[in-house]
């Protein structure tokens, strides 16, 4: 899987989990401010990403993630997908 493909998959899962239109889920979108996601929404989204991609994302690594782009990067790093 290359980066654009991964990004589109991650965005789709995030849109589904956060119940927002896919068009709003852009790399710059901030979870809390732009997508109205609370901390449990984020954990749920991470659980869905873990299941989809077969990766494990520890809680401490989620802490710095504020935007969709950062979430994509985090999943990419876990999967060894380069930019």
């Amino acid at each position, binding site marked *: 899987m290359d980066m654009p493909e991964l990004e589109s998959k991650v965005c789709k899962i995030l849109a589904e989990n956060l119940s927002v239109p896919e068009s709003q889920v852009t790399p710059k979108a901030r979870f809390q401010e732009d997508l109205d996601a609370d901390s449990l929404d984020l954990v749920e989204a991470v659980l*869905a990403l873990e299941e989809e991609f077969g990766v494990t994302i520890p809680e401490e690594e989620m802490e710095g993630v504020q935007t969709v782009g950062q979430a994509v990067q985090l999943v990419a790093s876990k999967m060894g997908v380069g930019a």
Partner: protein
Amino acid sequence: MPEGERTVALVTGASRGIGSATCLALARTGLAVAVGYRSDPEGAEETVAKARADGGTAIAVSIDVRDEVSVDGAFGRVEAELGRVRVLVNNAGYTRDGLAVKYATEQWDATVETNLTGAFLCTRRALPGMLKARWGRIVNVASAAALRGNAGQAAYSASKAGLVGLTKSLAREVGGRGITVNAVCPGFVHTRMTEPQSEESRQRYLEMTPAGRFGTPEEVASVIACLAGPEAGYVNGAVVSVDGGLTA
């Protein structure tokens, strides 16, 4: 409850006493029940046999709630054989009475690990599936000792009071997702756990219990089954005493 899906329950510490009675009560309401046990596989198999004789679906599952790996393995088995756990009853409990001034650290740790950490580990493992389903029921079996102090039970009562705190915080964390987390607090119930109590201590409890008798595991189980049912969706973070009035 998710439409068209068989509801699966896991009860820990279910080879006897309240856990066993809870399995039978849940099986009678049509749930597929995983009978969790640690030290007594025969008791668990007996519970399974009784549930099946009643027309229910049940399997026995080895689970040491103090051990993350064991918890994960047990949930994996339940998922493979019955489906994802939608109802979790954290019932596995441990007690060894003794006055705090001479109480061994190892006993303290063993009590807290089983009664409190064990419930947390099972709950953490169960929650992702419940969150995804937007439905779940967690019932923590605490104790009247969580609400009133008991000389000689500092560790037990502290661990059970901790379980009440866990219940209330979890209720707030996941209450918006169709998941309820409640606690029941049994008083003096005839089980193997209360067998070692001295006759004098039994008599004292009896005097403090307005019902004038001890409870049965079935009386606690029916309250747990009610909290675990689809109709109890608006009961969340509750601490329900089943103690014949002991803490009234």
